[in-house]
């Protein structure tokens, strides 16, 4: 019996999923509006990075680490720093990826248009970067070292360690939690041979000390708490936080990014600011459905507030 179910799943994954959704459940026995167990662990890598995190959403795992660079800000924004985001896939996240992070053996050949957009590293990278920068969660002036001369460039690198769907949420949560973990080291400007150089002020020579516990370091201030939620549309039903199997079958996907700091109760209904909302895919959905999605995202923000805030 077990075997025949697996065969059914392999031959006609769409029908297989439909059987579940028609019975108002999902293959992993979640309700349609339920997200998977989400965990955030910070400061996991302390040697080369200044802030790091491991985000676990069900079986999806993403490691994020932040490295820093110093550069000259542009003359137009002399006191602004910069944030850059890269995302990487590798064979760690599943057998379908090769070492360059491209999909080679695809178990999900019949991927829908929406799912394809959510599997392409470059579009994901662009989406994550744009969301973080356009949300204004960090005032880039905090990254200034010396106005007009030097500022920090924060490089956020995410690697997918295990891919089981909904990596977008994992990337965003990872970037947010790593940024919260980030400590900017204390620096001073110095002149060497007529050139100005930014020097790290070494707290002491103890190599044992992890970098992010550096004395005199500076934590960033956050204006917003970015919380994402991805919802897949399958056969007219909404599947919150889809797994890889569900994701590859969904006709459409919607990602709502909300500000967890802006939540308020209005007539018993949770509302707040939406920072980014993007729908992709071939399906049509009504405004009511989009409203329902953002409602779910506010709920998610409420739920993740405790995990994200230290």
């Amino acid at each position, binding site marked *: 019996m077990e075997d025949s179910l697996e065969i059914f799943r392999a031959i006609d994954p769409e029908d297989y999923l439909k059987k579940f959704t028609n019975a108002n459940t999902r293959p992993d026995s979640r309700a349609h509006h339920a997200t998977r167990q989400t965990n955030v662990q910070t400061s996991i*890598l*302390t*040697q*080369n*990075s200044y802030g*790091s995190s491991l985000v676990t959403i069900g*079986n999806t*795992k993403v*490691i994020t*680490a*932040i*490295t*820093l*660079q*110093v*550069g*000259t*800000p*542009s*003359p*137009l*924004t002399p006191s*602004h720093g*910069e944030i850059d985001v*890269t995302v*990487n896939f*590798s*064979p*760690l*996240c*599943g*057998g379908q990826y090769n*070492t360059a992070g491209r999909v*080679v*053996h695809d178990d999900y050949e019949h991927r829908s248009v929406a799912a394809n957009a959510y599997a392409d590293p470059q579009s994901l990278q662009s989406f994550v970067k744009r969301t973080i920068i356009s949300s204004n969660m960090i005032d880039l002036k905090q990254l200034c070292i010396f106005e007009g*001369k*030097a*500022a920090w*460039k924060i*490089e956020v*690198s995410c*690697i997918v*360690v*295990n*891919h*089981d769907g909904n990596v977008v949420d994992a990337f965003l949560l990872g970037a947010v939690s790593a940024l919260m973990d980030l400590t900017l080291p204390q*620096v001073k400007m110095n002149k*060497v041979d007529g*050139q100005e*150089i*930014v*020097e*790290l*002020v*070494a707290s002491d020579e103890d*190599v*044992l*000390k992890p970098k992010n516990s550096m004395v005199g370091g500076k934590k960033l201030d956050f204006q917003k708490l970015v919380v994402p939620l991805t919802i897949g549309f399958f056969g007219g039903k909404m599947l919150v936080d889809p797994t890889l199997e569900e994701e590859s079958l969904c006709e459409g996907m919607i990602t709502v990014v909300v500000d967890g700091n802006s939540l308020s109760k209005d007539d018993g209904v949770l509302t707040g600011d939406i920072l980014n909302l993007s729908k992709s895919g071939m399906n049509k959905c009504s405004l009511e459905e989009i409203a329902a999605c953002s409602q779910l995202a506010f709920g998610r923000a409420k739920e993740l507030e405790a995990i994200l805030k230290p």
Partner: protein
Amino acid sequence: MPTANTVLSNCYTPLPAQEKGKQVKEKKQYINPTSRSSGVEKNHRNAKSIRHVCIDRHVLSNSTGSSLVELGHTKILCSVHGPRPFNSAQTNDASVTSGVLSCQVRFAQKFGQHSEIENMTHAKNLDGYSSSFSNISSQKREVELSSRLHDAIAPSLPLELLMKNVVEVFVMILQDDGSILPASVVAASLALADAGVEVYDLVSAFSVAVIPRSLCVETKDDEDNAGVTTFDNGQYSLLADPTSTEILSAEGVVTMGMMKNWKEVVFWYQTGSIPPNIVSEAGELCKEGCTAMHNFMRQSLTSFPDISN
């Protein structure tokens, strides 16, 4: 040298961020063999001891087998896929009838290697750091590590049993703090066992750095000093499980891989010029280290993995 005028729209001209006194500081640092970093704060180790070890397997659900190996700050993730049939990219040679082992080692982009270490110029060995700091050099290091890893793991696999199938081993170095080659070997071997691939024995590996006496400083008041005098041969000190700072000061590094149950050495890699008597001493220390690592690996295999992962 870029000047402040060479700016793009809102991009950066990288400026050199330097640690204090870096220009005058010698690359070779003094090492205190009796008080070394162990990866755990306030817990120092002596010349013969290993760093804080953490070994886990079956950590990734999408891989056939996987493992996580931590030696102090060195952190490595390994996944194994397969055995599965060849695809045309892997081999076009129809005459290959046995199995194929493919090993790939990659550094996590940007944070895998120490950024300052990429600028180091004097290094001379694999576990040390290559000679230029361009991106290409890190790729070359990855390629070399991959082939060394293959050399170390291949003897433990009866490949002829895998008939026209490929086993893919992928190692991701999340954080490099020395001894990455032995840690990768341990991780790969454990992940293969976790994947249920038939092996003759687990391959455990260990590194020992040979430090010139002239670079050693000793704390006189340390009571654990006895461990050091054993290796006191006038010119060199041996350090087990070296960190990246220690490797940079080392005259040479000896890495050995063993199949402990078969009492056989499957892999030996030495860099730097070391007198023969020191080499054999280092070999002995490696052997002890391999035995210790083997025990850790066996423990992790016999304990029941966390299925929820």
